[in-house]
């Protein structure tokens, strides 16, 4: 081989790998799914991807007659990697619409990229800052406000267990955990709750024995976890192993629903109460259709992760329809105040904060003998949609473009 040929191959490889100066065709709308395939949320990214893809495929990968090009990037559940890859997709692939990533903390960093690069950014997660202290014109929040979640969980749990006043909290130590913890405590005040302990654990913690023993020593009436995914599963398992549940009720305040419950044995699910942004028995036409198609395709019903990606994509496309334009600013304006009857029923985007107002689910898990089938984990015992009261609102000015 000649040296020149090697160089040629090198150059070809380089242009393959670095899509730099190029190449989105003019009429194509490029949408980026920033989904984690590695790192702490490696398990969630593939599920997010399913949801977003399904929503786009329903529309035949088209909106307003223009083809949609769906691209994904692995954010690695890390702020640095995610921001870098998001920028690369925006600059290199011409992505102007971006959904994700899953981790609150990382999403806050990505949200800054959206603001700087002027691209529409949809996100679902437990931090209140995207529609709060760090709100801006380009980012939208799909998940319920942590206040809405806390209110739904605490109010309805106390209705069922009026005497359970001593709470012990286990909190994931990052943006999402802090936000939800704050409002659980705020709402708890109105019920006269006493928080006998609140321990924080790192994201990705798997060894809960130390936390659980400490919880047990506090002699609480109830243990409430504010964590997610594998952390919540490992925590619930140890709380059961140490004999706290089913004697005491355990609340998973912000759960992904099916995906976590399926990992827990029926014994562990006894006396387990669950707050979630989505549950697959949601009684709306869109949800019924989505759950049916999802089950047909993947076997299990969808939990929070695929549903959020699905619904965010649909909401964004509804913005295109309303705006009759694929310009970022026009779609943002259309989304502000949009009201749809969709996956969760009535959903509205608050124009002043970009928070989606929508119901939050509160479930009670069924004892084994009451389960009608293998996946019949829980009943939705309440939904709640109390919006964040004005005195807590941290998004004073959503700003301009």
């Amino acid at each position: 081989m000649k040296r020149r040929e090697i160089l040629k191959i090198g150059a070809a490889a380089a242009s393959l790998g670095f899509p730099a100066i190029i190449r989105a065709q003019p009429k194509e709308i490029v949408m980026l799914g920033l989904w984690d395939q590695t790192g702490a949320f490696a398990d969630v990214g593939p599920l997010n991807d399913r949801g977003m893809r399904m929503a786009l495929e329903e529309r035949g990968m088209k909106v307003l007659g223009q083809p949609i090009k769906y691209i994904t990037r692995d954010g690695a559940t890390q702020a640095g990697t995610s921001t870098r890859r998001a920028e690369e997709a925006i600059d290199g692939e011409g992505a102007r619409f971006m959904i994700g990533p899953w981790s609150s903390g990382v999403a806050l960093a990505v949200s800054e990229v959206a603001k700087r690069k002027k691209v529409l950014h949809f996100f679902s997660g437990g931090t209140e800052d995207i529609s709060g202290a760090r709100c801006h014109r380009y980012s939208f929040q799909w998940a319920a406000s942590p206040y809405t979640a806390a209110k739904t969980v605490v109010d309805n749990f106390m209705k069922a267990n009026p005497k359970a006043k001593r709470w012990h909290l286990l909190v994931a130590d990052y943006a999402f955990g802090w936000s939800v913890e704050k409002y659980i405590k705020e709402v708890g005040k109105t019920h006269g709750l006493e928080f006998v302990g609140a321990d924080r654990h790192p994201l990705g913690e798997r060894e809960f024995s130390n936390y659980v023993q400490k919880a047990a020593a506090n002699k609480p009436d109830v243990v409430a976890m504010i964590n997610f995914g594998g952390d919540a599963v490992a925590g619930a398992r140890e709380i059961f192993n140490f004999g706290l549940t089913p004697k005491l009720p355990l609340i998973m305040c912000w759960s992904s629903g099916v995906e976590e419950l399926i990992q827990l044995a029926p014994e562990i699910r006894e006396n387990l109460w669950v707050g979630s942004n989505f549950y697959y028995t949601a009684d709306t036409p869109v949800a019924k259709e989505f759950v049916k198609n999802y089950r047909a395709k993947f076997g299990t019903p969808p939990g929070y992760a695929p549903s959020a990606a699905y619904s965010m994509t649909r909401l964004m496309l509804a913005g295109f329809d309303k705006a009759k334009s694929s310009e970022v600013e026009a779609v943002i304006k259309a989304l502000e105040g949009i009201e749809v009857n969709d996956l969760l029923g009535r959903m509205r985007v608050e124009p002043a904060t970009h928070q989606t107002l929508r119901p939050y689910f509160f479930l009670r898990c069924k004892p084994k003998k009451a389960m009608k089938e293998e996946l019949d984990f829980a009943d939705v015992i309440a939904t709640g949609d109390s919006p964040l009261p004005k005195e807590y609102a941290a998004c004073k000015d959503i700003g301009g473009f």
Partner: protein
Amino acid sequence: MNLLLGQILNGIATGMLYALMGLGLSLITGVLNIPNFAHGALFAIGAYFLVSVVGLLGNFWLGLLVAPIGVALLGLLIEYAGVRRLYAAGHDYQLLFTFGLALILNELIIVIWGPVGISHLPPAILRGGVDLGFTFYPKYRLFVMAMAGLLVVATWLFLEKTRYGAIMRAGIENKEMVSLLGIDIHWLFTVAFALGAYLAGIAGALTAPIRGLSPGMGVDMLGIAFVVVALGGLGNLLGAIAAGLLIGVAQAVVAAYWTEASTAVIFAVMAAVLLVRPQGLFGIR
């Protein structure tokens, strides 16, 4: 007080697992003189093997027997096909190799078993807990403590009291002498690696019902195993056991009062000990 006693018990239980990990790593680093960054991945593979074997054969005890042997065989293969070619290569390339291996194993876990975590219950007889007076304690954890203790003792007896063990200890201290005695040093290396892998694998298998399974489960353990070896002294088996227990208990006790610091304390203890005793707790050099 009860809380403290309970936490110490917790610390001993996790500390025994740390000791198993550290013991395996200490053997590998001591005998082969390579930094095994795939040790955490072997731990994870042990847990996944357990779940697969239990799924196939429907018996936890068989799983606990077979899975670590599977990991040992994997270790055998790794040593025979790869590590063996690197003894003369310098630590940098050994590290690149074992780290590459760890990446591959971690990703293979995702490809084979999927990215979503898996839960695994202890066998029926070990479910539930017992009241120890000062705390209610899960039976399975007591079992893990006993089992890990047994393994540690067995490994120690093997190394101290058997001919093979004596050769292996000699291998840690003086490789040339072993060669001069006419023993195939390659064989010794292979066995040491497989034994180290076995210990990592069984630590993973034992952990599965406690921590559940997730593809990244080995990463935390890798860091801890290194701390154990650094604290206990390279190739020092008693040191590894003591160091494992020390950081397990330190972590649990700190968690009782200041949970946020409970992981950092592992590394803080290490730094403190090394400041006072640079050679580690029991290191001679």
